């Protein structure tokens, strides 16, 4: 046992070390108060109704700027997807998925027999339509900032623990301080937006650059825009995306009230699904595997005890 103690201390230090590559000065993201249903141990699953609503939010709000190039419409109707139905094990036959795809007109990857481009309604096998023909067009339309592809955004944020990526989306979408923004006329006669802080030691005024929006959860550095004690700059930074989810931005098909936090919750859960569509399968396989391994280890322990019973060691 003597050997174990320092190793335990070491593992503790290692755990500290692993959490130490935190991003700049962004505020620590948080999920909803009740936690994410999919992050529950031992077999938490996505709330499929929420994922469906989240798809609606993506379709009606996010998709005008953000693509999801790794997803196809068929994914929506595959097992674990929001519109899966037992009647249609092949998602390409699922009428709901077909209808969702058909709403979108895409450029067919194959030209017609004369070599001319063909525009046609999408089918389930097509990938999600990209809002811009290329990255340059995307940047030009957004003041030089590239709206990131959202296919794996929940895996690309946080530190890899289950739900951290979704918490980031949730915190970012609900974290804007738009209700605190005040406007004054600047020296050059143009309007200047600013936010006053009086939060413990963080006291001062943050000026919002034109075309950018302050968000405490966005990784960045607000120091150049901060008039106040530079040792206590507010968390976060400025991003080019304006607040997108004011109350009632979408009208949910299922009648759920579309509050900002509800929409943020739903879209975060949709993106969580999209980042790892097989996570439901992973979670349902987890428990049987663990039980099997634990039983096997118990069996081997007793075999070990029995085989070694007459050997001094």
């Amino acid at each position: 046992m003597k050997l174990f103690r320092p190793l335990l201390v070491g593992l503790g230090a290692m755990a500290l070390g692993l959490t130490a590559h935190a991003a700049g000065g962004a505020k620590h993201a948080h999920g909803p108060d009740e936690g994410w249903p999919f992050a529950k141990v031992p077999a938490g699953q996505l709330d499929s109704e929420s994922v469906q609503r989240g798809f609606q939010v993506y379709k009606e709000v996010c998709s005008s700027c953000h693509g999801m190039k790794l997803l196809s419409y068929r994914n929506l109707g595959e097992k674990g997807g929001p519109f899966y139905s037992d009647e249609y094990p092949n998602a390409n036959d699922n009428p709901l998925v077909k209808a969702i795809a058909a709403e979108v007109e895409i450029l067919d990857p194959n030209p017609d027999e004369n070599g001319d481009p063909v525009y046609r309604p999408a089918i389930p096998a097509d990938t999600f339509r990209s809002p811009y023909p290329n990255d340059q067009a995307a940047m030009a339309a957004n003041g030089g900032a590239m709206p990131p592809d959202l296919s794996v955004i929940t895996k690309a944020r946080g530190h890899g623990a289950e739900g951290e990526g979704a918490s980031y989306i949730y915190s970012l979408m609900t974290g804007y301080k738009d209700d605190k923004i005040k406007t004054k006329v600047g020296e050059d006669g143009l309007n200047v937006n600013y936010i006053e802080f009086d939060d413990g030691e963080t006291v001062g005024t943050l000026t919002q650059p034109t075309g950018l929006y302050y968000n405490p959860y966005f990784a960045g550095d607000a120091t150049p825009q901060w008039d106040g004690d530079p040792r206590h700059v507010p968390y976060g930074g400025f991003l080019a995306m304006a607040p997108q989810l004011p109350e009632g931005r979408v009208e949910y098909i299922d009648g759920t009230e579309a509050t900002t936090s509800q929409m943020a919750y739903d879209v975060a859960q949709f993106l969580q699904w999209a980042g790892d569509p097989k996570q439901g399968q992973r979670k349902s396989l987890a428990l049987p595997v663990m039980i099997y391994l634990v039983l096997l280890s118990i069996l081997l322990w007793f075999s070990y005890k029995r085989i070694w019973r007459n050997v001094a060691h």
Partner: protein
Amino acid sequence: MSGHESTYKPNTGIEKWLDDRLPIIRLAHDSFVDFPTPKNLNYWYTFGGILAVCLAIQIITGVVLAMHYTATVNEAFGSVERIMRDVPFGWLIRNIHMVGASMFFLAVYVHMFRGLYYGSYKAPREVLWLLGCVIFLLMMATAFLGYMLPWGQMSLHGANVIINLFGAIPLVGEGIQSWLMGGPSVGNQTLQRFFSLHYLLPFMIAGVVILHIWALHVPGNNNPTGKEVQDVEKDTIPFHPYYTVKDGFAIVVFLIIFAVFVFYAPNVLGHADNYIEANPLVTPAHIVPEWYLLPFYAILRAITFNIGPIEAKLLGVIFMFGAIAVLFLLPWLDTSKVKSMRYRPVAKQFFFGFVVACLLLSWCGASNPDDPVISMGEDKLVVSYTDVAGIEGTRVFEEYAPAAQFRDEQTAAGATASLAVQAAPAFRFLHLSQIMTAYYFAYFLLILPILGLRERPKGEPDSIHQSILGHDAPAAAPAE
């Protein structure tokens, strides 16, 4: 052990026929069934078997992944995701391979620390230890190459950092660099050769593993007492079933931990930035290697000073590779006649210090070198100004209000004034990494050589079976 006589008796006609032509069953029987193994091996000795399982898992999952992976810069990222989405159980295979790399290193580090503690590198096992060091080096190369394949941000920029290290070598550095990259920069040709080598190296590891096991079976296992087997009857038992069942139990416990990561936190050991497709025009804020390379990364960054004509960058590279090279010299650096640190009370303290140093180096590798570990005092504010007469000055303040007031007064008087933070003196990660790097090298180059000549070992038993009897009879002198 090579000395012991084969007990294999072919029973069937086919076995006899084969035994006369290729005695492969005899080899397996003598190596893994009837192999005399010291009775007193503890659970730290199960990691060899665990590592064999890790290698097998990585090769099997890797071969399947290679069937679906596309090694081009435009398709690599998407093809890895397609494995996760469209290949049946592809998510499981990929998660096992990804987590498996970390588990492999976890096991190899325990295995190496065990060897360090029980003196398993000493005569007659020097070649065994050297082969192990070769495997470790190949593992690091393989893991580094593999980390590039998903072509995420960390893949690209991590590869850039490491390949640039070779550029620090005088005269031939640049040539080596472009030879490794296959062109002027890390690009498609680099990805393709990295994929090719990532597929090749595991089989070289497997080859060296065979030599490693061979070199183990000539002198036989070391054991916690460090005493060689004197009496096969009293000191040893056959490998099967005694150690197959003990190793089997340990392997399954290890697999439980493995499975927790695979099923509940597949991404927690990696870096989120690697799920952003590689973009040479955007550099991540913090480039960090995978956790198992962090100690060496910390050593690389700890060297911020020149020594004589050698510049800091090259010196960092020398120290980083030196940290591994010194392992190869270990059998001849440790002068102690006593193998096991159980009986070396002073060396034992330094050994645990070494483990802590390695863990602290990992922490340093993951942190920003300029961040404080311990801050001494409060940050202050400093106002720098140049007044109308062109005279420069600074004033330091504790509080913000008077500092801002002073700045505004200066500005009103026509001076240019600015306010900035003056960081409090602190003990920073850079300092910690320098101290720990010094300890790392001192452990091998000073402590072990000197201590072996000066220390007084305590309580060493005469033989393995004497130590075992000491366990059972509380009246006897405690073995530990």
